[in-house]
């Protein structure tokens, strides 16, 4: 059983590369949406996370998340510190047919992109130094435990029987609600809602969204951890949900705002990808189309309610990742079927109401935990080192003032 399979290994390594590529993709997706004067600072936050969190993960993050349980299903032990005991042989506790190192680095890319998602909430005003400290703390005390709960051996949410195929709770809800916390604590950008803060480069945002879509095949279908029928199925559901949500966001925007925007189509695709993530390996292709259609509309509504709700989540992390992730986790409780994945469970529409309850618990606990801890971290950092750049720096833009660079020199 713990025999290395080259096909599975090839697939997981490729998937890892694809998921790694998502973080620069996110950098572009976000970078295009800010004003020109902040494009580099926005890109930098995602890019440097790829450096910082990767090292954190290898040193101790992976151990906290995935080492044998340290007690109560709450956190992993220290067996994998510095990647001790993580070798080239498969470890059947994680994945029976691929090197343990492959599983470890596949998971690393999830740990990397999750804090990067949050950066969209406080774009255009956060201090770079504080951001680095926040990220390291957040990964260690929020992400690593939640990953353990949901995916770690002995993790309590996993034991409870809630389903999360590729990170609806772990990645999207945890980051989406932390984004809300950040938007609230950091406060609005100066002149928010007074002066237009349009995306300075929608072509860059589309490139980013396309890379995200491309990479998400690794994210979701790679989560099968094998190149088998389940991977193919998750690949299909992923793609169809993205496609359906791109269409539904565009259509509903067209109806309500008169014009179908390119930013809308790109945002819709991402919303669909988020929504299908928890159920990708549990639902049928036709269900994934429905999840995508609804996910696109829900996220469109959420994003458009933001100005009324009064917080300034610059790039709509809450509206897309929190709303989309929550919807997707609950939808998994509705649409999951053991016909797709016998290791999964049946959802409400297949006669099993219990799953929906478990999904709700997983969502609720993740949400509360991430929100509360994020608030605490941010409040403390605000006191200790300050969260926001100076007013003048914000006006001149973070690229010049924090990094001493300009995105473009076109004259």
């Amino acid at each position, binding site marked *: 059983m713990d025999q290395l399979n080259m096909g599975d290994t090839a697939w997981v390594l490729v998937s890892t590369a694809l998921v790694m590529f998502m973080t620069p993709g996110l950098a572009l997706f976000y970078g295009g949406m800010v004003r020109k004067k902040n494009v580099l600072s926005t890109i930098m936050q995602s890019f440097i996370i790829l450096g910082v969190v990767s090292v954190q993960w290898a040193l101790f993050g992976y151990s906290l998340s995935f080492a044998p349980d340290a007690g109560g299903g709450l956190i992993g032990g220290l067996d994998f510190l510095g990647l001790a005991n993580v070798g080239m042989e498969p470890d059947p506790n994680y994945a029976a047919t691929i090197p343990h190192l492959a599983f470890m680095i596949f998971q690393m890319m999830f740990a990397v992109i999750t804090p990067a998602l949050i950066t969209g909430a406080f774009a255009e005003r956060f201090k770079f130094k504080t951001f680095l400290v926040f990220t390291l703390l957040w990964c260690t005390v929020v992400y690593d435990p939640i990953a353990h709960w949901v995916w770690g051996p002995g993790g309590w949410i996993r034991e409870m029987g809630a389903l999360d195929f590729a990170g609806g709770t772990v990645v999207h809800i945890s980051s989406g609600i932390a984004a809300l916390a950040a938007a609230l604590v950091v406060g609005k950008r100066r002149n928010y809602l007074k002066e*237009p803060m349009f995306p300075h480069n929608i072509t860059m945002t589309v490139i980013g969204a396309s890379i995200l879509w491309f990479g998400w095949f690794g994210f979701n279908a790679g989560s099968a951890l094998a190149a088998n029928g389940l991977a193919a199925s998750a690949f299909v559901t992923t793609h169809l949900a993205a496609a359906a949500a791109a269409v539904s966001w565009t259509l509903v925007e067209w109806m309500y705002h008169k014009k179908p925007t390119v930013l809308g189509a790109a945002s819709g695709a991402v919303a669909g990808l988020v929504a299908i993530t928890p159920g990708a390996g549990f639902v049928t292709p036709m269900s994934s189309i429905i999840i995508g259609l609804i996910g696109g509309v829900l996220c469109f509504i959420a994003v*458009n309610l*933001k100005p009324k709700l009064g917080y300034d989540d610059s790039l709509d992390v809450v509206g897309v990742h929190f709303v989309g992730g929550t919807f997707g986790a609950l939808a998994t409780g509705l649409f999951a079927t053991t016909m797709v994945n016998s290791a999964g469970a049946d959802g409400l529409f297949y006669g099993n109401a219990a799953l929906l309850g478990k999904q709700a618990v997983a969502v609720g606990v993740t949400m509360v935990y991430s929100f509360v801890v994020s608030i605490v971290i941010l409040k403390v950092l605000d006191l200790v080192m300050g969260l926001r750049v100076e007013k003048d720096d914000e006006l001149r833009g973070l690229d010049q003032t924090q990094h001493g660079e300009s995105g473009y020199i076109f004259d």
Partner: protein
Amino acid sequence: MKKVEAIIKPFKLDEVKDALNEAGIAGLTVSEVKGYGRQKGHVELYRGAEYEVAFVPKVKIEMVVSDNMLARVVSVIEETAKTGKIGDGKIFVSTVDEVIRIRTGERGETAV
């Protein structure tokens, strides 16, 4: 010598330039500007909120002409830049004391 500055709609630039050329203008200089006037900008909806985009893209043509060309030049611009719709723009005329062609050092009307 007179300086004529015309703020016009960008898509009219080629037509105006060609007409001025035919009218015998020797040179002109063009820059991209943003205008604010009776022609209001537009309201853009973005992520659930409305914003007024106050400025409208325009093009500024500057040229220095001899006094006897002035009337001609102004009327050419008036005719070709006109669409009759709001936002067609303005022409400003002012006096220039001296003109120098850098290449030759010529001054005055011959330098125009």
